[in-house]
């Protein structure tokens, strides 16, 4: 069973932007794409820990603001030739309400 936590509405997150959910296990960045898809990643770049929530979102990717690593929003892997991975969390939107699970997805 997945424990879904209501974290806010879709409108709370800017399009092509993100918001941070602060948890006891660290910050989680919740992203919203131009197509209103929502993704959640551990808010830390695998390179040097940069806050991904502060990066520029494009397509289904985000660019880390510290050294321009690009990560896939769907699974948290770094876009080649960079190599690395950050944790990814299940998130869903129903009737405009965004819900997040703190169970890390394994990829």
């Amino acid at each position, binding site marked *: 069973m997945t424990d879904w936590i209501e974290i806010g509405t879709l409108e*709370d997150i*800017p399009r092509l932007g993100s*918001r941070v*959910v*602060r948890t006891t296990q660290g910050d989680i960045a919740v992203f919203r794409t131009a197509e209103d898809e929502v993704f959640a990643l551990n808010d830390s770049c695998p390179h040097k820990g940069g806050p991904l929530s502060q990066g*520029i979102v494009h397509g289904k990717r985000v660019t880390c*603001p510290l050294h*321009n690593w690009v990560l896939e929003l769907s699974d948290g892997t770094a876009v080649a030739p960079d190599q690395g991975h950050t944790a990814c969390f299940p998130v869903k939107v129903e009737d405009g309400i965004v819900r997040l699970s703190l169970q890390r997805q394994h990829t």
Partner: protein
Amino acid sequence: MKEKLVLIGNGMAGVRTLEELLKIAPDKYDITVFGAEPYGNYNRILLSPVLAGEKTIDQIMLNDKQWYVDNGITLHCGKEKEVVQIDRRKRKVIASDGTTAEYDFLLLATGSNPFIVPVPGNDLPGVVTFRDIHDVDLMLEASKQHQHAVVIGGGLLGLEAANGLMLQGMSVTVVHIQDTLMERQLDKAAGALLRKSLEERGMHFYMPAQTTAIIGEDRVRGVRFKDGSELYADLVVMAVGIRPNIELAKKSGIHCERGIVANDTLQTFDPRVYAVGECVQHRGQAYGLVAPLFEQAKVCANHLAHLGYARYQGSMTSTKLKVTGIDLFSAGDFTGDETTEEIVIKDAARGMYKKIVLKDNRIHGAVMYGDTVDGAWYFQLMRDGTDISAFRDHLMFGESHLGDAGHGGQNKAASMSDSMEVCGCNGVCKGTIVKAVTEKGLFTLDEVRTHTKASSSCGSCTGLVEQIMSSVLGGGYSAAPKEKPVCKCTDHTHDEVRKVIRQQHLLSIPDVMRYLEWRTPNGCHSCRPALNYYLLCAWPAEYKDDAQSRFINERVHANIQKDGTYSVVPRMWGGVTTPDELRTIADVADKYKIPTVKVTGGQRIDLLGVKKEDLPGVWRDLNKGGMVSGHAYAKGLRTVKTCVGKEWCRFGTQDSTAMGIELEKRTWGSWMPHKFKMAVSGCPRNCAEATIKDFGIVAVESGWELHVGGNGGVKVRATDLLCKVTTDAEVEEYCYAFIQLYREEAHYLDRTAPWIERVGLEYVKQRIVEDAEGRKALRERFVESQKYAQVDPWEERASHDVERHEFVPLKLVG
């Protein structure tokens, strides 16, 4: 049903076209490739190092057979799979063993054939060319059994072959029909130096000499010349040139001259048939170097994908000799004529020779021998058509002589050890770059940046990285095309984008992307900030800024630091502060437990280590003390540095502090292509260091000197003197006009220094100094734009909750 694409020729140009095509239209075609060599695709330009024993065949493979499988490409390769007929009516190709393939589009990349000197005996065993893996195998084999080699041809290829055979232990004589080596790339002086240093390495020369026969019975035994003399040889290498391989095309009725004639979209006279590579003749020119072939590949792929906007307009090429330890570079037209001038340095004792041919103050060609460290730089200047008059007197001494902060290329790439650091930002050493270039088959600066990170940050090592690439790849080094596209999401250049925004009155980033058919749905971190700026600059009143297309620093009006905290710099007009302001700053630092308070390089105070959620509070308190944002994070006006000037200084000639404050009050808040710094010095002692600023003002007894284009960062550049004016009003008018010209015409992320070097000081003078009407119009546009720009972003966010969501978490959990 997918359309069918057939490629004839499994070499570098053809396969590169497929790679480009797969990138932009992966599912468009069923692809079939015919290749006469029994391998995958390999890096032909690295055959010289294979012959020299520095590399193995496996190390120069670009795409092995698995690559074709992975990409769903049918590969027919080997001698029996050579295509012998094209049935254009039935759109079908036929190989010599009867294999056929139908096509909707056909791509010819048949390359070239080595030219065989038409003399008796040229088919004897032991006579080889230098073209493919098979030739290299023959030579390596021969070098094990035989001792004496003659290489016919003293050009690039011949000398590389000769060097390789010498390194395999053979005694080698190069026979050349001219009296100068590499006469197409070198003038006589450089050719003589090259000969001398090759002789010192043990190479022999017999020149000028015309070969009339190859002698021998069951195997080659020697070479005979026109004057009757003979040389003994048990291996003869013919390396006198290449001819486009057009036999098949010709037979199929495709129009050929010297090569297969192709237009700017790489189409032949049959619109279903494209051609790329060495077999092509484009605008009368056939290319034998890899860089232009890759440019062709890109354009051809664009048209095969039915995108239809790219155009190939010919290439400029440069040459390097891949003989280790010999530094030689040439580019463009180095002979010159009555319309050109030349600058020459020759130091025979040091084995150094350098010649630059100039036309209308632009580099027209260059030959360098012995010291080629600046080859890439000269080539860049040549391709960009840069006006060099501003630094003509330094030109010969190279780029490093123009000043840089330490990584600009004063090192010689070839003499560096593998462990030496090249990119100081990312800690990349030479060996990593060399390895990436050879093992991953990289050809362009962009590829090296992506794979190694070298030159991808501050860019000060770009020249050096390019030198390393050209020392590894020689003629294969693919320099960036003349006008760079904005980013990988488009092929349009910065100038094209700006023009379209104005002409079509485009008012949003999605509109621009739609109009110019961007390849990505919403761009990337490179193009979105650029487009946002271009729109803002074009329509200051109408355009609505797009926060999500700004880098975080500009989005939250503070500088992000390595640990994810921020730093805050209040504006300190002209570098002047008061005890009250200092007290406010101290109180803020105490209240928010700010760990570091530092004086910046630009006469201000930086509060470092502020948590993001504290930013609005910090700003509110600073606002209360009368301070606004210093835009220390902005691609816009940063500081106006001043000295104390006439008011206090015993040497001061004008009130530089007041001038600095006035200018800062008028210009703050304006967004620009990059950060912009000004300074005002009160006398020629120049204590405010105005001559390394984007706009520098130096007071003199009779008025003000205005300087432009300085830079104290990555590459130190002293300003150029724009002009002298007498009144304060003139200082402002010229300053605003200059800023506006820079805002309207520089590419995003160009500082003023590289921009001025590109367009030339003369151009800027003509627009700002000579054209009074134009200057006033620029000034007006700047003043108009400032009406919408001078809003303190801190006040908006601290007191009116603008962008509130930026500073509070969405939710706290647990």
